[in-house]
């Protein structure tokens, strides 16, 4: 197998707080191949967005390494980092706050082109912006407009066009369709897939929506309180989840089918605060199969066969009750 495009090892982010620290991300390792979509999945506070931001060093990691195309991103100085960021772009959840309201669409999309000096002339810049608008299903007539003149779905298309502008190889998409209505969500998901096929883009797709992830991702990494608890191919993870948290998460997702009002695995309790994470396996206070060992030692992420990884002391998939 070729060397992965992105390789993350032992990535951590610890925020200091009064009387201790919050381990927002605590030793996360994964790889993304060129042209691949890896989804980071989990609930609020699991560290998925912080992980995404660290990949671009928008948040500086406390520990770990990030290797992109063989280059250690954490070792780069400011100028080299900026140059590298041309190949690493990000799309945020809320298209209402990620686009400057005072700028026109042309300047919004051209910003990365200007930053990296990719256009020699105004004509070339405009042509490139028009090309990008068409790529995302918009048109030259939108050049002179401001963000408020667009719907949520169109704004997210503009954000995607901006991310595409410097011809990146990897896009971190942080909940890119979560703020959109379902019919528009489908349009944007399709667009992202088309663009991937066309340009061989890799995505780190951060989402809490399992159905969207099932559709778009090649591989899925599930996070809980700053740690990876399971990682594997989308097919395996959805068909035979190994970790009890993944099983509960899948079982809890509402399904648009009234014939299937299931007996769910309803987890008791809330997600604990990362400032006060439980000992051992973070999941043990809510886990239906927890034993004494789970309170004491942290389970390592280990291979369950076929490269499917799970961090559970009891590595067997138990049958999900449907």
């Amino acid at each position, binding site marked *: 197998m070729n060397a992965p495009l992105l390789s993350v090892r032992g990535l951590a982010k610890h925020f200091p707080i009064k009387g201790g620290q919050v381990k927002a991300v605590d030793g996360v390792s994964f790889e993304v191949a060129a042209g691949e979509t890896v989804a980071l999945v989990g*609930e*609020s506070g699991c560290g998925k967005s912080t992980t995404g931001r660290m990949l671009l060093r928008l948040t500086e990691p406390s520990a770990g390494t990030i290797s992109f195309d063989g280059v250690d991103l954490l070792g780069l100085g400011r100028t080299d980092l900026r140059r590298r960021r041309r190949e690493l772009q990000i799309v945020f959840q809320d298209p209402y706050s990620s686009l400057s309201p005072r700028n026109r669409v042309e300047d919004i999309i051209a910003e990365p082109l200007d930053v990296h000096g990719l256009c020699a002339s105004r004509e070339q810049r405009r042509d490139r912006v028009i090309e990008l608008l068409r790529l995302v299903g918009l048109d030259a007539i939108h050049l002179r407009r401001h963000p408020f003149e667009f*719907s*949520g*779905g*169109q704004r997210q298309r503009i954000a995607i066009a901006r991310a595409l502008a410097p011809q990146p190889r990897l896009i971190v998409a942080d909940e890119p369709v979560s703020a959109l*209505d*379902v*019919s*528009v*969500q*489908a*349009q944007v*998901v*399709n667009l992202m*897939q088309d663009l991937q096929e066309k340009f061989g883009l890799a995505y780190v797709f951060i989402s*809490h929506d*399992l*159905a*969207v992830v*099932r*559709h778009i991702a090649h591989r899925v990494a599930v996070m809980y309180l700053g740690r990876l608890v399971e990682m594997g191919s*989308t097919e395996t993870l*959805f068909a035979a989840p190994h970790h009890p948290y993944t099983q*509960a*998460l*899948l*079982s*809890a*997702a*509402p*399904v*648009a*089918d*009234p*014939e*299937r*009002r299931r007996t*769910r695995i*309803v*987890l*008791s309790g*809330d*997600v604990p605060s990362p400032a006060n994470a439980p000992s051992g396996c973070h999941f043990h206070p809510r886990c239906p199969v927890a034993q004494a060992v789970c309170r004491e030692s942290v389970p390592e992420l280990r291979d369950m066969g076929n490269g499917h990884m799970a961090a559970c002391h009891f590595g067997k998939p138990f049958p999900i009750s449907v």
Partner: protein
Amino acid sequence: MSLLEVTDLAVHLFTNRGVVRAVDGVSFSLDAGRSLGIVGESGCGKTMTALSLMRLIPEPPARIVSGSIRFDGEDVVTMSSPRLRALRGNQIGMIYQDPMTSLNPVFTVGEQIAEAVRLHRHDTRNAAWARAVEVLRLVGIPDPDRVASAYPHQLSGGMRQRVVIGMALACDPKLLVADEPTTALDVTIQAQILELLRRLQGELGTGIILITHDLGVIADLVDDVVVMYAGKLVEHAPVRRLFAAPRHPYTQGLLRSVPSLETREHRLLTIDGTVPPAHAMPNGCRFNPRCALVRDICHEQEPPLVDAGGGTQVACWALT
């Protein structure tokens, strides 16, 4: 007799850019102890409809311009303010999306629930507090005596939403209106709240109106569904019927565009185009610019709601 009967409700917004027909001729009814879901995308009028049920729409710019809302035989539209106040929070409970904004940060949750109880039932301070603890227990809060003395910021999002549900139920309402009650919550917490609403409905026999954009939540909880698009009711059906045999092209498109947890299609199906802007609605059927079955009459006249068999009512010229 129905617990709630909404007939030909129209809510207009009077703005600088013209009149917006936010809710336009919507009718539905709910029997005691039943649940009805109102589903649709942003701007379809579902929240305006819900707020109208208790006359909580912002006036101005909004105004109920026609129609009636009969709750337990009385018309809410023409009701006096004192009578409305007696109804709100007492006979009709309300749950909103964001539990943090529906709770007052400077009072304990017990005080807030007890206040509603004292106001409507004229209980003593002690009796109202006891009732607050009782409803906290009812909504599955562990250690309710202690939690009653907690402030909202000391509770998690899921706990806060339980408190809000408890507050809404404190006076034994006949009807609970829940506007996106689980949208702000994580999926494992959402599952807990849906389970709770289902259990409470079974135990207390409260009628529920659930407003949501999430078809999964609809499929999970309600008996009947109203689908709204751009201020119009486009389809009204029993829940199983709606998912098994959707009739309106919009409902069909909406259901098709939901990605499935079980299977993986090569592409998601979409509905072309976007919802038209509120102040520039097309003539005739408001869905016509996005509809595959569009014909001449769709541009000229609004389709009436007609019976389509199996308990389904649908507003579409192609099916008339």
